[in-house]
């Protein structure tokens, strides 16, 4: 057995390989992204990025119906997009095993909400495994695929940010050797879910859950760890680790499968203790089911529902005592929020929207950071693809003058994910709003993944690059203009004209992300501020570029200075300077 350090996501990828997964599909989303990126290490798996999570799941379903094992991965909110096929997949069941990995994000480290996707297991009537560390992430991925075939059901594997992105020591295993052959097999009663068939399948699903509930009582993934026998704890996932850390003396029922619950095992365990806790992150998912069994427990009466659980928060909930830092700064510290990178092609677009006093319906991506000062030019952000529909709806209720200020801003990957549907609606229903597509040739926010507009596949092979202009024209947009966002004046002129136009128009601001992995943009030498010419007017600071620093003590009013390690010479700031003080190249 080989010991190695793996993140939860790397371990899931390894588990998929060992289990003989044939097809893996996903749309990138923090904290799930690295699962598919790591699966590409294993050439026996056909791994690909789908344009969105619904398509990813449908690809997985097809593979399963053909007899192959499949893994589909997404972040928690991605499951909302995939929910339509998911609920019916639960009815059909599988042929080859199918695992859907949902990577939840308690604490919203990089998400727009912190929904607890364990609720989907109950809602869709599907079993859900929940690993506590990387070893279990690998083991449970294998197990989930076997269980999927054994019970003819799709299976959830739920990770959270602290599982997906934590690394721990793992013993890796060998790939399985015997898998059933793939082939066409007609089975309409199972695969064609029209009412007559689906009614019969619903009965099968309910029976499946009852059988799994009894089966789970005997399985090693639901285990009891004996402590001092005074306090009982029911827990799962990362909360198990915090419980072990905080209550080392407790007896613990550690659930590896959080749905369906092993009810008899829980009854037997609970009967031994006067004090019983359910320790879980986010919703009282286990707690409510245990209470419904007539068992008294402590849970969300003392534990937080909002935010992630930590050892410190758990200790405070259980004992009322907070961890006391030995030393804490006594003064307020400046925040250090994330920022668009130096050379980011989105920066000038938001500067322009700010100056044009646009109301910007925004979307999900790096460019969501356009809401921050000093650009301050994003006014809504709901979910992937929402910007365009939001703009349509807003323009409908405003007078002509105000409606003209509405601009939807969406990235290339997000546009292809679910934005295109909104654009069809705009044209179909004669909207007056403007759409800006920020085409930086990659899915940047999640770490620069390929998408149908980038021209490459997950494996790095060249592929057809979707022509976004032609796509927009084909749905009926008559006014499609491409601008280079590094040219501030031209970008402004075009956006202003299109905002004034009383019909749908699309402006594509096209420049590759400075960090794109393939064909990286050649960095230009760093620019330099001529201290003699700099008047300290701060016009360049309006870009909010991290490479432009301010020296308050220089000159009478202070002066700008460019950090040569950060600057990539994009040339935006010289366009901002009225005194021709920025240019040339920094030395050394």
């Amino acid at each position, binding site marked *: 057995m080989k010991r190695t350090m793996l993140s939860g996501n790397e371990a899931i990828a390894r588990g998929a390989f060992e289990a003989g997964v044939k097809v893996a599909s996903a749309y990138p989303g923090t904290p799930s992204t690295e699962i598919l990126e790591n699966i590409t290490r294993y050439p026996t798996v056909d791994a690909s990025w789908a344009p969105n999570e619904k398509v990813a799941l449908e690809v997985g379903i097809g593979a399963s119906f053909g007899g192959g094992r499949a893994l589909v991965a997404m972040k928690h909110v991605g499951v909302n997009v995939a929910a339509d096929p998911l609920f019916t997949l639960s009815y059909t069941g599988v042929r080859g095993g199918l695992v859907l990995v949902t990577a939840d994000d308690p604490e919203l480290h990089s998400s727009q909400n912190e929904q607890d996707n364990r609720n989907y297991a109950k809602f869709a009537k599907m079993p859900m495994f929940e690993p506590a560390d990387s070893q279990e992430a690998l083991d449970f991925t294998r197990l989930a695929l076997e269980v999927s075939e054994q019970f003819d059901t799709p299976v959830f594997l739920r990770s959270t940010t602290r599982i997906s992105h934590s690394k*721990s020591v793992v013993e890796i295993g060998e790939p399985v050797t015997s898998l059933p052959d793939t082939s066409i097999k007609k089975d309409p009663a199972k695969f064609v879910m029209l009412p007559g068939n689906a009614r019969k399948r619903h009965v099968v699903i309910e029976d499946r859950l009852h059988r799994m509930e009894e089966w789970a009582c005997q399985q090693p993934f639901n285990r009891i760890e004996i402590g001092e026998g005074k306090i009982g704890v029911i827990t799962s996932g990362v909360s198990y680790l915090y419980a072990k850390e905080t209550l080392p003396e407790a007896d613990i029922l550690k659930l590896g499968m959080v749905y369906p619950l092993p009810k008899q095992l829980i009854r037997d365990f609970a009967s031994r203790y006067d004090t019983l806790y359910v320790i879980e992150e986010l919703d009282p998912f286990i707690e409510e089911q245990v209470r419904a069994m007539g068992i008294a427990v402590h849970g969300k009466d003392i534990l937080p529902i909002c935010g992630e659980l930590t050892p410190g928060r758990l200790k405070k909930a259980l004992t009322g005592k907070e961890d006391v830092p030995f030393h804490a700064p006594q003064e307020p510290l400046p*925040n250090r929020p994330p920022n668009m990178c130096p050379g980011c092609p989105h920066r000038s677009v938001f500067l322009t929207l700010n100056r044009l006093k646009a109301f910007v319906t925004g979307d999900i991506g790096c460019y969501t950071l356009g809401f921050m000062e000093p650009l301050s030019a994003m006014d809504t952000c709901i979910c992937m693809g929402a910007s365009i529909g939001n703009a349509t709806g807003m323009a409908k209720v405003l007078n002509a003058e105000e409606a003209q200020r509405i601009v939807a801003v969406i990235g290339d990957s997000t546009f292809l994910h679910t934005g295109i549907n909104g654009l069809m609606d705009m044209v179909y229903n004669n909207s007056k709003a403007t759409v800006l597509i920020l085409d930086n040739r990659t899915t940047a926010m999640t770490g620069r993944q390929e998408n149908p507009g980038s021209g490459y596949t997950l494996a790095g092979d060249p592929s057809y690059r979707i022509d976004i202009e032609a796509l927009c024209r084909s749905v009926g947009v008559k006014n499609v203009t491409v601008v280079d966002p590094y040219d501030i004046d031209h970008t402004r002129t075009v956006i202003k004209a299109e905002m004034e136009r009383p019909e749908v128009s699309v402006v594509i601001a096209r420049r590759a992300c400075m960090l794109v992995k393939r064909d990286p943009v050649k960095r230009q030498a760093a620019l330099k501020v001529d201290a003699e010419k700099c008047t300290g007017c701060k016009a360049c600071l309006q870009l*909010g570029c991290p490479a432009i620093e301010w020296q308050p003590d220089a000159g009478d009013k202070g002066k700008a200075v460019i950090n040569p390690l950060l600057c990539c010479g994009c040339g935006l700031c010289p366009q901002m300077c009225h005194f021709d003080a920025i240019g040339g190249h920094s030395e050394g």
Partner: protein
Amino acid sequence: MKDKVTNVLISGVGGQGILLASEVLSEVLMLAGYDVKKNEIHGMAQRGGSVVSHIRFGTKVYSSIIPEGEGDILLGFELLETYRYLPLLRKGAKIIVNDLKILPPPVTLGKETYPDNVQAKIQQAFPDTLLVKGADLAKQVGNPRTVNMALLGAMSGALPIDNQLWTDTLRCMVPERFLEANLEAFTLGSRAALACS
């Protein structure tokens, strides 16, 4: 030392190379035979934002999160981002800090102020603080992007790890074309720390 969990933090600004430093450290600790857990936040938090990586090692480690007041060692890549995470440290913790200020955007915009005398305040609360001139060391190497390895080198003496294991691990983890520069930076960092102790 193997019976107790040791808690190491690496903090700084997204883009400074904290991720690679923490990857190398956790790999070294695993190869030395410890149970290791490490975590940090990816995604939105890494774009020029404040970053902190937690690394815990010992015979058996449960949580990957270091509780407040229990950190043993803090390796800081930037002064404010070192100061910010002092509450995670225990009394007498060891700090290795890079002599560097990076102004956060709200400071550049004049909305907030960078605290005064950060270095002195850190040293006052934690006497076992070592200030490393990371940029100077990287300049000696001739590659400004090796600061992270110089800092890791400066911390290496504080951990129960054989020097050879560090070098072997770096050889496995750093891309070939950057390897020599990174090894040199690591060595300069560890020597700089020795000279101060």
